[in-house]
Structures are given as structure tokens and as C-alpha cells.
């Protein structure tokens, strides 16, 4: 198989998501009606973001173990694409919330957690860009990135499950946000997971493009 097979897979999966996501029969739950289809588009943003920043975390740890410029670039660019997906997730969530929960912002614990987590990640880029010494920049950015990741996880995955939340998975609401067992309709699952994989692969693709561009820039700078 050629090295770009996963890019084609991403195209195929997202085409499938965009076609099947609109045409399959969906269950009617509460006041969601057709907006339940947002599950194929809004939720994969967050799953994709989580995977991308996890990759970023791994490269930050690798950088601290062995300070190579390459690891620093990889960590930054994966975090960047992850943050873009996070912003899109937040915006799409607000549109969805406006028509099902009554207002775009309901101070739902998951909304608040996601917003805070995103701000923490924005601070990562500010912090990284504020330093000119490459070695110092890489080290501080890596340490901060690890910190950001471990704030992000409780903010978005632990805290919302411990309090009352409008999102599925909160106290008093049925359904597991991780979609384990029978909490997701089987036909919806057949579109949801391909969507997650498709969006994640697209995120990886864009990240690698940025990494390659950044690497070229660095080469030009030092040659």
C-alpha cells in the first residue's frame, strides 16, 4: 500500500459520513428530532481533538526525554489542529444548544470545562511564541503542554460527569458520553465511529502538512 492510503481513507469515511449522516433513519429522542444528526458532526470534533492533543502530549514527553527540534514542532502542530477542532466543537455545540436547550450558552459544566480547557491551550501558544531561545522555548512549551493535557482531561471528561449536566453522562441524565454498551443506537453507531476516524485522519493530515511546512522553514532558517 502506498504511504498515503490513510488520506484516501479519510476522504472515503467523511464522504460516507456526510451522505449517510443525512439519509439514515434516526431515533426520535426528546426534543432533539433531526438535530440528533449533529452527533455525526459535533461530537467527532471533540473525539478528534482529544486524539490530536494526546499525540501532542506524547511528542512533548518525547521532547523532554530527548530534546529534538522535530518533536517540538510535532507537538505544537498537533496541538494547533486540535485546538482548531475544539473551537469548531464549541461553536457547533452552541448552535445545537440554541435550538435544543434554549440558549447557546447554558453554563453547562461541560461547556464551561471545554471553554476553560481551550483557553488553557490558547495560553500554550502564547507562551511558546513569547520565547525566542529555541531550546528554552521547546522545554517550557513541552512542560506546559503536559500540564494543559492533564487539566483538560478532568475539565472535559471527569467534572461534567460528577455534577448535573445537560450533556449525556451527567448526573440525572441517561447515556454514557463514551458511548459504551447500548447507549448509542446501533444504526447511529455505524455512522458515528467512521465519522470520528475520518475527522481524526483529516486532523492528522492537516497537522502533518503544518509540520512539513514548519520543518522547511527551520531548514531555510539554519542553512
Amino acid at each position: 500500500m502506498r504511504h498515503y492510503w490513510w488520506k484516501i481513507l479519510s476522504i472515503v469515511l467523511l464522504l460516507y459520513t456526510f451522505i449517510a449522516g443525512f439519509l439514515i433513519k434516526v431515533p426520535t429522542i426528546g426534543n432533539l428530532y433531526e438535530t440528533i444528526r449533529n452527533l455525526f458532526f459535533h461530537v467527532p470534533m471533540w473525539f478528534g481533538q482529544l486524539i490530536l492533543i494526546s499525540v501532542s502530549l506524547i511528542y512533548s514527553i518525547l521532547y523532554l526525554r530527548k530534546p529534538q527540534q522535530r518533536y517540538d514542532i510535532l507537538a505544537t502542530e498537533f496541538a494547533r489542529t486540535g485546538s482548531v477542532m475544539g473551537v469548531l466543537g464549541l461553536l457547533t455545540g452552541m448552535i445545537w444548544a440554541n435550538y435544543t436547550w434554549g440558549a447557546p450558552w447554558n453554563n453547562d459544566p461541560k461547556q464551561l470545562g471545554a471553554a476553560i480547557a481551550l483557553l488553557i491551550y490558547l495560553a500554550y501558544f502564547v507562551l511558546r511564541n513569547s520565547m525566542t531561545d529555541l531550546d528554552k522555548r521547546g522545554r517550557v512549551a513541552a512542560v506546559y503542554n503536559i500540564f494543559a493535557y492533564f487539566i483538560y482531561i478532568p475539565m472535559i471528561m471527569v467534572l461534567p460527569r460528577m455534577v448535573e449536566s445537560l450533556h449525556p453522562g451527567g448526573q440525572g441524565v441517561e447515556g454514557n458520553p463514551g458511548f459504551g454498551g447500548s447507549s448509542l443506537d446501533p444504526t447511529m453507531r455505524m455512522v458515528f465511529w467512521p465519522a470520528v476516524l475520518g475527522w481524526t485522519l483529516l486532523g492528522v493530515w492537516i497537522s502533518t502538512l503544518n509540520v512539513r511546512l514548519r520543518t522547511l522553514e527551520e531548514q531555510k532558517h539554519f542553512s
Partner: protein
Amino acid sequence: MKKLFTTLLSVLLVFVAGAQEHIANDTATAQTGLRADGKIYVVVAVIVTILLGLYIYVIRLDRKISRLEKNA
């Protein structure tokens, strides 16, 4: 790469054509083709166009960077 596009496009067209045929058999009235089922197929056509456009953009970017890497 060009072959890939042609393949993808033909797959998509088969998809759309199949959907249309199916509906044409169902209702013989004016509500056929892209006008069927509350015109949801129009939305599908729009978002698929956007998605394909975005992918073409990303692929072109990818190839441009590949060319730069070769020259570097």
C-alpha cells in the same frame, strides 16, 4: 492522484444516481430526484460539494509542500 479523483467522483455519482432512481420509482409525481423527501438530497449535495472542495484544497497544499521538500 487524478485517477483517484475520477474514481471518487464516479463513486459519488453512482450514489446520487442510485438514490434518485430509487425515489423515481417510489413517487411518479413532481417530488422526484433532488426534490424528494423534503429536498434533503439538496443539502447532501451541497455539503458533499463543500467537503470535496476542502479535500481538493488540502490535496493541492500537500502536493505543493511535497514539491518544496523535493527542491530543498
